[in-house]
């Protein structure tokens, strides 16, 4: 479908002699928040890397915003935040963001905007290396927001944040989706799934579910998503 933000079919990825993504196919519609959930090591990060086009894949197709993943045309249209902050520790937040903004040809006014969006305005002049874990994470997220990308691929953006900050970030994600952006957000915490419009559930490289939280609850007869996940996993075994 031309209207989908991400379309994968028969995706296989092999890392270190092991198949970590096994025949995964799904579609992510535009303008919604899709949660990519599953335990640590289930292949979430590898799948995200394949979508942003930095992962060597074994087979299958990944189409992003109508182009093959990794196409040069996509490089300004996708915002990607890795799980481990990938931002220069020996620069201030503003300096680091200015550099990435220059690379993305984003307007320099974007720098202050994204710093405010992740709530780091008071720390903008601090060295990234001196930030706390949660601040470091948010600075990393800010880079992905530069240039208002159409698709945001965020790998565990809320890990290690306190409940208030987590809530703030989810409110931000919702605002971005309302403004038309597509978000793919990974998490290993099931209670975050309830905040997504759709969920992709992975386990050991296999996609177990691709539906709305409501559908998942109805299908498994579980009231909370943690239970739903457990029932799905046990049904497969």
């Amino acid at each position: 479908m031309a209207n989908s933000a991400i379309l994968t079919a028969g995706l296989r990825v092999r890392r270190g002699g092991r198949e970590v993504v096994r025949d995964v196919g799904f579609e992510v519609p535009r303008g919604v928040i899709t949660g990519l959930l599953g335990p640590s090591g289930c292949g979430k990060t590898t799948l995200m890397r394949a979508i942003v086009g930095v992962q060597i894949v074994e087979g299958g197709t990944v189409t992003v915003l109508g182009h093959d993943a990794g196409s040069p045309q996509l490089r300004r249209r996708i915002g990607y935040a890795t799980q481990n902050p990938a931002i220069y520790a020996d620069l201030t937040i503003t300096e680091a963001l200015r550099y990435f903004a220059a690379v993305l040809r984003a307007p320099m006014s974007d720098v202050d905007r994204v710093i405010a969006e992740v709530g780091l305005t008071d720390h903008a002049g601090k060295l990234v290396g001196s930030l706390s874990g949660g601040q470091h994470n948010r600075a990393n997220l800010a880079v992905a927001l530069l240039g208002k990308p159409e698709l945001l691929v965020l790998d565990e953006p809320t890990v290690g944040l306190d409940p208030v900050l987590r809530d703030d970030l989810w409110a931000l994600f919702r605002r971005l989706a309302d403004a038309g952006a597509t978000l793919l957000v990974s998490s290993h915490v099931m209670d975050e799934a309830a905040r997504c419009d759709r969920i992709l559930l992975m386990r050991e490289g296999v996609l177990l579910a691709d539906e709305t939280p409501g559908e998942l609850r109805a299908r498994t007869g579980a009231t909370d998503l943690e239970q739903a996940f457990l029932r799905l996993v046990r049904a497969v075994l």
Partner: protein
Amino acid sequence: MNPALTLATARRILTQLRHDRRTVVMLILVPSLLMVLLRFVFNNELMFSRTAPALLGVFPFLIMFLITSITTLRERTTGTLERLMTMPIGRLDLLFGYALAFGSIAVVQVGLAAGISLAWLGLDIVGSVGMLLLIAVLDALLGMALGLFVSAFARTEFQAVQFMPLFVLPQILLCGLFMPRGQMGWLLNWLSNVMPLSYAVEGLTRVTTSSTIDATLLRNLLIVAVCALLALMLGAATLRRRTP
């Protein structure tokens, strides 16, 4: 290729360094201090004048190799390289950004060391000072490009640091500084012929003793420049958009 991105990258690298004052001070002062040390080790202006020009090339070569291999390794291991590879920046924009940033540091480094040597340490050269500086800066760029290239083969900073004795020290031993290259056995002579530093040192020595810019000098300059460019291109080949 986009000059704006090359400039932005160079500015970013220099800003990173600016936050690390101690490194900046060492980068700029260490070669000069070593020249002063060398002067007093020889305790003789004539002997100093014979060796100093070669070392004006060797010190920046060594230092640039070391700091570039660590800086690029850091860029790889902290994930910033992967992030950049998802963005609209060419590999050469990034590499030339490095070359510009470290090249400008090399100009300051070499300029100061040469200035001190000429003004106070009794270094006396027959050829042009400009040519001496040019070769020394090219040498620094060569060290930078080699450092960039070999950092692709290091997984940890421990490994990267050890590439220095592995890739740099043999070049220093064989470049004609310790023993004229013509007097080496055929194997060592051949090795010395394929090592770019030999040509840089030969060029620097020639500038010391002769004011003519002849074909051999130009050939040496060209070899060093081409090797630096080649190492930079090989370095570009090690930057991959997609990784396993």
